[in-house]
């Protein structure tokens, strides 16, 4: 048996062990689970602004109209690198900020979506997670 074959088997065992130890969390994925033809708007308070690869997440606390405990929503967007090139920073949002968000909702109705825009209610500033202009430049 060639060494390479042994290594392949070892890799297979490691991968199988990883799969058994707990399914991958699923951090990196397509955005097709969000319904692109629908746009919802929510107002709430930022619980936390998760500035991580591969996707940045705005965790939003929303007070239900009929009272009751605040509900947590996850609003996902692209990566820190892409957002930086769209003018965002990791300080763009912080816990406690009052915001209005627009997003494409999860198709299964869960409390989550793909972020389209976020507006800071205290300043009126709107941030959009666009992918840039696809144009070269110095600035």
């Amino acid at each position, binding site marked *: 048996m060639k060494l390479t074959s042994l290594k392949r088997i070892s890799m297979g065992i490691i991968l199988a062990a990883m799969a058994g130890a707990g399914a991958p969390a699923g*951090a990196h994925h*397509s955005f*097709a689970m969000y319904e692109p033809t629908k746009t919802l708007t929510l107002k709430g308070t930022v619980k936390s602004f998760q500035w991580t690869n591969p996707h940045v997440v705005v965790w939003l606390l929303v007070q239900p109209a009929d009272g009751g405990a605040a509900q*947590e929503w996850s609003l*996902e967007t*692209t990566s820190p690198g892409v957002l*930086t090139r769209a003018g965002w920073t990791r300080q763009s949002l912080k816990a406690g900020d009052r915001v209005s968000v627009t997003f494409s909702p999860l198709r299964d109705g869960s409390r989550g979506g793909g972020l389209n825009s976020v507006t800071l209610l205290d300043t009126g500033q709107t941030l959009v997670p666009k992918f840039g202009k696809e144009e070269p430049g110095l600035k």
Partner: protein
Amino acid sequence: MGTRINRLVFVVGMIACARLAPLPAHAADQEAINRPAGAQDWQALAKLPDWNGVWTPVISDQVAQEKSNPPPWTPQVAKQIKHMYAEEDAGRPFPVIDHCFPTGMPSWMLITHNAFEILFTPGRVTILGEGDGNRLRRIYTDGRAHPADPDPSFHGHSIGHWEQDTLVVDTVALLPQAYLAVNEAVGVPNNGDMHIVERLHLQGPDTLLDDLEITANKVLSKPWRTTRKYYRQRAQKYDIVEGVCTQGSFTEAVDKNGNAIFAPIKFHNGVPVGSDSK
């Protein structure tokens, strides 16, 4: 006594012969070294084209080419691909990159939304990307050949050479599990024996083209030729940032001892559904 001496001479002679015998070919390979770079090696880099800055894929072109120049899938794979497109349309995207492994080759060059940079050093071109934890390509331009039996990896073993201002890269030894993907929800593992030849060159001052020819006989009915575009930005505020994919599966937390830790986030069907693990 004489016989003993003869025996001793014979044994010593055998040992000497063994030491002087030519080394087997694989042992000779192991003795290849990365030689010190001299002034001439560094000066030679000045003649290479200017690829400094940050290169970001033209995503609109990726999307357009996905439709206009799809891979020549084998009939069996074409059925899988058709099913994946249907699942994507239904909002159940297949998790091509869900596991946070490196996107790997050739999918990195084909489908990524994230930027990369290209470094020239003597005998080497290195491409460093962001978006997953180990997104880097080492392309040896020192004249070496591929190893006889290289370890398979997500990015493969790459050797390159310059033809005027075009970098020609030959890549083998890719893991069979490395995806040949056309978007983040549609693609298949190459299943082995994939070979990629690329020609990287500028088109105008700030557009880089990668002309790829991908031979993957387990999943393609013939070699697939395609081109991807990247645009350059020079502002330092756009410099490449660290991109550790698994970090997105965790939230910042503090343990009972006051230590800053990462705590897992709850996921459901691939998307985050709870900002803490409770």
